[in-house]
């Protein structure tokens, strides 16, 4: 009997070792070496970590990653929740709207980034032309460092809100309408219903979606790289882009992997905080 149980467990354990433990250990080993894509290099201790933590490029990338993540998570959540609430009402052609609103999430990022590039990249692109027609000048959305950062963040919100909308919609569907009916009978205003009923009852789902979106944003490479490549002048370089450049452009595997591990550590810390919030909701 015990042998049977062991035999059942072995494939899963092997898979876990192969897919989790081995890459993790391999990566840790690389992060303490000065290797390249061709050779493992020499053992350098924690030099890659200290170099990263003392470099301006790392902290500039960390700053942009923070902004990108905060805007990405809360921007997409606000838009997603708003649309989910809107779609709960008896809107005509609701099904069609749902499908259309899902498109930014469904369309491959390569396609959407190309479309956004076409929309904003050059002075003769449609959006700068619209601004010019409105008398607001011709903004260089991807050439100006500040505007490029804003554009990338808005692009991220646009790509991500359908996911938040779906998460919110499923959570809202689980709220019993009787609760709202009772609140209305007690004289609760729509605002009070939203803050006192809707938000608390979807809190668990909200925290989970925040955790997931935080991971998506921090690890998001294509959204940034395809639109701006991290530029102009590093204005949109996030930590994951910096790690990619270290490994695949500067051919410094150790530095890149060290940055990836630092990112992971921060992600875990943020997720623990949010996970604690979930437990609070569960025990409330």
């Amino acid at each position, binding site marked *: 009997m015990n042998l049977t149980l062991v035999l059942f467990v072995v494939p899963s354990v092997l898979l876990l070792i192969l897919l*989790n433990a081995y*890459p993790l250990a391999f990566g840790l080993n690389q992060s303490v070496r000065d290797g390249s894509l*061709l050779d493992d290099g020499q053992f350098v201790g924690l030099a890659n970590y200290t170099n990263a933590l003392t470099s301006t490029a790392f902290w500039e990338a960390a700053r942009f990653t923070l902004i990108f993540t905060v805007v990405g998570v809360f921007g997409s959540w606000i838009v997603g929740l708003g649309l989910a609430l809107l779609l709960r009402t008896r809107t005509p052609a609701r099904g069609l709207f749902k499908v259309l609103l899902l498109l930014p999430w469904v369309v491959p990022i390569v396609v959407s980034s190309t479309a956004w590039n076409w929309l904003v*990249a*050059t002075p003769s692109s449609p959006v700068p032309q619209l601004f010019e027609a409105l008398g607001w000048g011709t903004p260089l959305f991807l050439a100006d460092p500040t505007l490029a950062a804003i554009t990338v963040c808005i692009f991220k919100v646009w790509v991500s809100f359908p996911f938040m909308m779906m998460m919110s919609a499923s959570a809202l569907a689980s709220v019993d309408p009787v609760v709202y009916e009772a609140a209305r009978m007690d004289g609760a205003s729509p605002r009070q219903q939203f803050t006192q009923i809707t938000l608390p009852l979807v809190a668990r789902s909200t925290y989970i979606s925040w955790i997931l979106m935080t991971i998506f944003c921090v690890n998001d490479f294509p959204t940034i790289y395809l639109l701006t490549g991290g530029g102009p002048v590093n204005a949109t370089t996030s930590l994951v882009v910096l790690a990619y450049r270290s490994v695949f452009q500067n051919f410094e*595997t150790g530095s890149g992997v060290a940055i990836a591990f630092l990112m992971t550590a921060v992600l875990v810390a943020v*997720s623990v905080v949010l996970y604690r919030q979930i437990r609070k909701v569960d025990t409330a």
Partner: protein
Amino acid sequence: MNSIESVSRLQMSRRGFLGALGAAAAIPLLAACSPGGAAGGGGGAGGGGGAGTIKFWDMPWGQANYSRAGKDLIASYTPAAGLGAASYQSIQWNNYYQTFSSAIASNTGPAVSSGSGFQAFQFAEAGKIAYADRVVDALKKSGSYDDFLPGVFDALRTGQGQVAIPWQMDLRVLWYRKSLLEKAGVDVPTDWASFLSAGKALKKIGVVGFATGAGSGFNLGGHAIVSMMINNGGGMFDPEGNPDLVTDRNIETLEFFNEMVSEGIIDPAAVSYTSENLLTQWKDRKAGMGINTPGWNASVGDTENDVLVGEPLVSPNGTKGSLYYVNNLMMYTATPNQEASEAFLEWYVDNMKTYWQQKVITAIPVRHSIADLPEFQENAQNVKIVDVWQPISQTYSARSTSSFGALAAVDGGQGMQTFSQTVLAGKSNPKQTLTTFQAAIESLMKKKS
């Protein structure tokens, strides 16, 4: 919908959750970084080469039918007695360096390959390249060596020997649209002063005078700046190969770029332009001049002989020059038989003209005999590039004569992108910009040494 609901209701233990989270965050990048983890079909896809077979890896350097022509060429190879035959494997450009790296690290790579720019130098520094000095000797003996254009062998030589054999070239040359210059009422520029005047005249008719780009994944802006630095007698390295950017010639070049930006000759959005943006600008007849690659007229779709190669500009210091890359053919230490690798490579460079004869490639050849082919002579712009631009062009390592592996990281690295975007933004202090870039290059070279 149900699956999302089930996710939201999922009961996770904290430990299990953290384990999954850590793995999810770390695995993709780490796996991609692994020398053995991004094989992409490299060594295992050796094209059916058996024991003793020389595996030849080649990228699609030309049109869609290039790889077919390559396969046919290799199939026609008849080795001398006792030497292995050759097999052909096409390697896609996408992530090609990772494909080679992982295959070579796991000893499943090719015996001979084509490669771009500095690939051979990088692998040579890792001890993976079999130097080609004996092939050079054989080419000298057969007389083929003298058929190569001047300087192309030197570009691939280090203190240790000949890292590779020249295969074709990639140059940065000045292109202009004839009709737009005529519309602006200016002649084709011949020096920096007339270039500036032409740029200003083009600006007046709403056309960009120096079309370039330094957006995502696009290095042309950096190449254009380095080309102009070389044109002005500057460069990135001193004759000993040490970074030497903060020179009067380079400062003068960057001041010229500042002037072009302030005059509106360089598009203010060029900083973020991708290759597609630039191509659209040329196709829409919004670009009058610019430094670009051979074959740019074909890319633009010019059928009216309107997009033409200009003359190399004469700098204020009376110098001429531009940037070029000598793409090459290299041999690896992991070969079933070094003698067979050398025999194959010698045969290949004497037979590679078939690509130009079949018109499956538009690249600039490194051999006079190929440049003299009627099929090549049909393209007047390419002929001009060979006749006028190649003799004055220098490699990335200018003013040094030898190249090294770290140039790959310099060329495609973060430092170059930051440098080019800073310059094209036009608000830079030239000396400070060059000092910052020099520090970035020194840091890269220090790590690689």
